């Protein structure tokens, strides 16, 4: 009678499984702490560690010389359905805040490995049917009394940082339309800013800002302009209404320029010839006023995209760099369309682009002045037309959502790429029918691998426009990266290896088998004077389209050199009430 129990949970309810032991009063994270996160060497306060999204830890205890001595200190199983881990943990005040599949949240005492509180959301029946790429969650945000998490069904929830109880929750949208959320919220001043996925369900992308204290909706900014707004003319008729441009990768912020940057994904439907035009601002990086949501400028990577090259993946990195003798406030992004872009982040001006993978063939080239890519029309799948193959890169991209990292001392950006191709065959125009919660016009698709090696971890020197090293992987790579001032780069692979690479030479200096594929992003923090490195391991996300689930997993691993795990009376096992009462005579 499983159907009965399913009916019983219809209707969303939310449970926080209580405080397991009392916690001391915590120092709260405020706006200044977030703006100055770089100076706070020990902690990891937001998704990209700092607003510039560099994922660069200033810690130096672990170096290429001693990393071979690094060992696991403790581990924690996130349990549940083991449906894949993609998160970046946060570290503040001795506590690790970790999100797992289905946006479950754990606050874990980093000294003892013991859970302080856990939050387990419940969902309406049927949600899984509209979540394209697994019930992933990529991270959390901190501010004041709250830990923010965006649930898979788009609810934004503020949890009390002390005990994980729900302070408020705001329902962003109706998941039945195919809108889901997997990204980490971004806190800017008193705004919690969130986006959504669902580009394949015929939705119109937007980001929203909620008041960080109250959860009141402040503004909604659509990535696809409506009638009368600049860019709407790049959409024929009313195609803008279902134009896609979703916002599922967390944005970044420049406090000095007071600009919020958020990327928009692929246009919809995939049949590009039914929406002839550039289709702004799909596949673009957009600069917003964080207080109003007004668009300041945009830069589009792939115009009139027929390839599903979401331009928002991964989030860009802000760097100050001198290129050809000119000091530039830049942003750098290795894009899913196979190119790495450097833009001026003050105005969106194009600086340069280079291919990050071999064999890119969807474009005849990128204009060296404007940065505009021209699609090779012999590679363009026409509605009802013949299949086209091989198109390079695959729609999963030269790279994808997994975050890159940047070492400002070296001027290198580190990212993972994959070498693969695809076949696309566009469906006839009459087959594109909008039904809420159903796929809206997808091409027939087949992926191909291209060689013995699949993934590559690459280092690119931004000022000198040249690749420095690469580390091949026999399977695809879907993990994020961490760079450290100690001179290391950390990342993981689908085979389950977590590795440390010499940032200068690209030599792999250390590896550890975590037991399941790594699709998450590492962090580093300092606790009681010691440097730790943490990573989530657990097969999931897009790789599940290509690999069987085994070996399944769901673990947080914490490493250090001579790390310390304190003894504690607390326990991570949860007794069943009344199962073993104390015997009383």
């Amino acid at each position, binding site marked *: *009678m*499983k*159907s*009965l129990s*399913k*009916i019983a949970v*219809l209707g969303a309810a939310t449970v926080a499984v209580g405080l397991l032991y009392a916690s001391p009063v915590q120092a709260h994270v405020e706006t200044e702490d977030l703006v100055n996160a770089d100076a706070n060497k020990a902690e990891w306060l937001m998704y990209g560690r700092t607003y510039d999204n560099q994922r660069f830890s200033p810690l130096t205890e672990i170096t290429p010389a001693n990393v071979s001595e690094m060992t696991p200190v403790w581990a924690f199983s996130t349990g549940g*359905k083991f*449906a894949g881990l993609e998160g970046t943990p946060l570290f503040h005040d001795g506590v690790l805040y970790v999100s797992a599949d289905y946006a479950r949240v754990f606050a874990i005492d980093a000294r003892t490995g013991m859970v302080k509180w856990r939050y387990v959301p419940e969902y309406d*029946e*049927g*949600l*899984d*049917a509209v979540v*394209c790429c*697994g*019930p992933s969650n990529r991270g959390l945000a901190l501010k004041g009394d709250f830990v923010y998490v965006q649930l898979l069904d788009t609810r934004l929830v503020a949890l009390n940082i002390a005990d994980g109880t729900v302070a408020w929750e705001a329902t962003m949208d109706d998941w039945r339309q195919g809108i889901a959320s997997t990204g980490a919220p971004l806190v800017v001043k008193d705004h919690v800013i969130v986006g959504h996925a669902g580009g*394949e369900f015929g939705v119109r992308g937007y980001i929203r800002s909620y008041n960080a204290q109250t959860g009141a909706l402040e503004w909604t900014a659509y990535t696809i302009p409506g009638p009368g707004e600049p860019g709407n003319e790049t959409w024929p008729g009313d195609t803008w209404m279902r134009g896609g441009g979703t916002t599922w990768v967390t944005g970044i912020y420049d406090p000095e320029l007071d600009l919020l940057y958020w990327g928009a994904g692929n246009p919809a439907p995939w049949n590009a010839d039914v929406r002839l035009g550039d289709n702004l601002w799909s596949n673009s990086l957009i600069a917003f006023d964080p207080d109003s949501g007004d668009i300041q400028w945009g830069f589009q990577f792939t115009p009139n995209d027929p390839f599903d090259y979401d331009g928002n993946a991964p989030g860009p990195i802000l760097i100050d760099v001198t290129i050809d003798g000119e000091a530039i406030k830049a942003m750098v992004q290795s894009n899913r369309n196979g190119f790495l872009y450097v833009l001026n982040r003050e105005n969106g001006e194009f600086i340069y682009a280079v291919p990050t993978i071999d064999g890119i063939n969807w474009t005849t080239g990128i204009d060296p002045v404007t940065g505009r890519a021209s699609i090779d029309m012999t590679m363009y799948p026409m509605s009802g037309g013949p299949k086209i193959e091989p198109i390079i890169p695959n729609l999963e991209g030269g790279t994808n959502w997994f975050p890159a990292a940047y070492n400002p001392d070296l001027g290198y950006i580190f990212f993972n790429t994959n070498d693969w191709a695809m076949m696309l065959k566009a*469906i006839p125009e009459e*087959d594109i*029918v909008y*039904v809420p*919660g*159903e*796929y809206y016009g*997808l091409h*027939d*698709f*087949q992926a191909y691998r291209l060689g013995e090696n699949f993934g590559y971890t690459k280092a690119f020197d931004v000022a000198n426009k040249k690749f420095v090293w690469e580390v091949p992987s026999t399977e695809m790579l879907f993990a994020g990266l961490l760079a450290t001032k100690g001179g290391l780069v950390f990342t993981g692979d689908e085979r389950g290896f977590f590795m440390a690479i010499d940032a200068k030479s690209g030599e792999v200096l250390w590896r550890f088998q975590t037991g399941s594929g790594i699709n998450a992003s590492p962090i580093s923090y300092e606790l009681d004077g010691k440097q730790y490195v943490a990573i989530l391991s657990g097969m999931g996300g897009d790789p*599940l*389209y*290509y690999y*069987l*689930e085994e070996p*399944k997993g769901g673990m947080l691993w914490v490493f250090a050199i001579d790390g310390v795990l304190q003894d504690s009376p607390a326990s991570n096992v949860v007794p069943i009430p009344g199962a073993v009462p104390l015997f009383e005579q």
Partner: protein
Amino acid sequence: MIGFVAAGLVAVVASSSAWSQAGDTAEEELKNPYLGQEEAIAEGRRTYRGRCILCHRNMGGRGPNLFATKLTDEQFLEVVINGRLGMRGPMPAFGYRMSLDDIWKVHAFIKSRDRF
């Protein structure tokens, strides 16, 4: 045997859904009445593209290759109505938003060929 649709449930779910329609024939093995019918296959293909390709892709992906499924007609129906949390992940329950006919038509489609 489709013994899982209790009368009480029908009131909870939409009355046009497969839950209510499959309820009465608990006794004999259910057979797909649409097998081999061209129009039903075309409709099933559209539903497959809209609702199933997301996970099952052309020949399997997050979910197994349905064009090679060994399930009987009735077993297929049961999985699609009820969903299943297997080793590979969640197969969502579609009984809430698909009619019995819709499910049979998808089944007729997957039985008509060996890949999408």
